[in-house]
């Protein structure tokens, strides 16, 4: 599910206070921030360096030792074909990010564009965009994915696209609210009267103010994307074997849960850690960036 928290903008002067090292320091000031940052960093590192870090090849079979628990050779145990769980989970991190990250980023870009258009152009354009965003949000993302993937079949790119579309509403809303609030500010109004063009206003005022909530939302939507993408893989949609998507590992392990709980256990642990980590990071970022939240429902 997508964490549907939109931000009422805190109009502020764009300043250096939220940059770089200072930001980091403030994030790790709280335990949730530390946890979140550690998870995020570990995940990215593992994702990038998985082939190097993984102790075994993720396709190497060892039928004789299938469905075994942790041992000295296979630190987390083996799956139903004797493949090393640790290696598969590591490569799985890469697969997860390869789908989730582009999906969320695409969602941000599209959401930003739509939100800007809605907020800035107003009127009928605004109304149409809002209704469309509402319509998209009236599907749980998984259901939307099922409908589309039933037709398009199992391709990574299709999954990325569907996920991106599912996230557009949350980003779009945040942007739109931001734009509307900015426009109402007296000094922005004044600037406009002095002849400042829309692009300048967007660049100088809107973007810096909409960035913090968008960043927070990105951090919150990323775990949702990973969750949905793994879920789809669990259902058999989106990846072909032998790609070790976490959802696939879960699904294989689920079929043989009575023979060995380890595949399911480790995958659940990894998924839980990832989603918790990014969510805590997002929460901490929200506190640090001083983004006030109000729940916006469809």
């Amino acid at each position, binding site marked *: 599910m997508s964490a549907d928290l939109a931000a009422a903008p805190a109009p502020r002067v764009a300043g250096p206070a939220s940059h770089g090292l200072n930001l980091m320091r403030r994030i790790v000031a709280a335990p949730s921030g530390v946890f979140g940052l550690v998870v995020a960093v570990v995940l990215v590192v593992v994702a990038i360096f998985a082939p190097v870090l993984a102790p075994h090849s993720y396709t190497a079979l060892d039928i004789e030792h299938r469905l075994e628990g942790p041992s000295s050779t296979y630190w987390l145990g083996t799956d139903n074909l004797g493949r090393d769980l640790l290696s598969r989970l590591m490569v799985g991190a890469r697969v997860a990010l390869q789908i989730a990250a582009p999906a969320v980023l695409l969602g941000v870009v599209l959401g930003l564009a739509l939100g800007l258009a809605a907020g800035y152009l107003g009127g009928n354009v605004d109304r149409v965009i809002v209704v469309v965003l509402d319509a998209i949000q009236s*599907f749980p993302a998984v259901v939307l994915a099922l409908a589309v993937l039933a037709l398009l079949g199992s391709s990574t790119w299709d999954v990325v696209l569907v996920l991106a579309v599912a996230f557009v509403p949350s980003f779009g809303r945040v942007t739109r609210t931001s734009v509307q609030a900015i426009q109402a500010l007296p000094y922005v109004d004044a600037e406009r009267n002095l002849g400042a063009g829309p692009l300048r206003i967007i660049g100088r005022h809107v973007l810096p103010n909409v960035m913090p909530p968008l960043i927070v939302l990105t951090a919150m939507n990323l775990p949702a994307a990973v969750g949905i993408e793994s879920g789809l893989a669990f259902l058999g949609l989106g990846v072909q074997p032998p790609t070790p998507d976490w959802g696939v590992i879960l699904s294989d392990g689920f079929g043989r849960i009575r023979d060995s*709980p380890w595949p399911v256990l480790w995958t659940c642990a990894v998924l839980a850690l990832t989603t918790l980590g*990014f969510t805590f990071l997002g929460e901490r970022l929200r506190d640090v960036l001083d983004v006030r939240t109000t729940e916006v429902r469809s």
Partner: protein
Amino acid sequence: MAILVLLIVMVFLALLLHILPGNPVTLMLGPRADPALIELARQQMDLNSSVPAQVWHFLTGAVRGDLGRDFLTQRPVSELIVGALPNTLILALTSLALAVAAAIPLAVLSAARQGGWLDRILGTMSVGIISIPSYVIGMVLLLLATVWLGWLPAIGTGSVTDPLDYLAHLVLPALSLAMIWAGYLARLLRSALLEVLGQDYIRAARAYGLAEWRIHYQLALRNAIPSVVALIGVALGDLMGSAIFIEVIFTRNGLGTLLYNATTQRDYPTVRGGVVLIAVLFVLANLLADLANRAINPRLREVR
């Protein structure tokens, strides 16, 4: 407004075959279908009419309850959906009820002892848990309660004729879904409660000697609930989506497994029908929540 959203959803579904890249028939049946099947598909999916006509037929058909026929066995999709729906609805509603039932005491206790350990744990975990995928929680519960402890049955809905059996089969799935939302709802309710508890009339009630628990549960809660009711609509919609995974994991027959199987079998009419139903339910749930909100909270009524 809700009607408009629903309309757009239906139009989108009617047009989906045409929006996506590729020939509609190839999308549905795969690249190598034989001509007889192609013709059947064209007829049943109304592909021989013009696109606007297709949308119109779909909309009018849906209103009448005619969502087409499943290719494989020619049974009406509405029949399949209606048959599968009850199990899923029961699951979703039970989960929601459980979540609310858990959320209320949690929220009241946290608000009562603000800053206490319960409050702090709730604060951290409530947002965390909700972000964990539902199937992860479902699997862990399945492992714990069934594979390891053997307390509860692992698969199926149980016999409908035996309510106790049905309940036994319902516990784990409902719990999995409820756990996700309980924390989040509790957190929201807590914030609303805190706001209410700061009001003057609460202090007045206390001065009058009203019992503390009465203040919390009767007075404060009643005024805090409205802000949460709205979210219940969202929760219900989300539960329908998560129900797909839970149904597959606990091998329960319902809308989720229907949709899932139809997707893997490339049975597009059924997929489309199922998605329509879920969208309708979601919009309905939100509408109901909205109306309930207005009914409970007179202030909102005036604002309107």
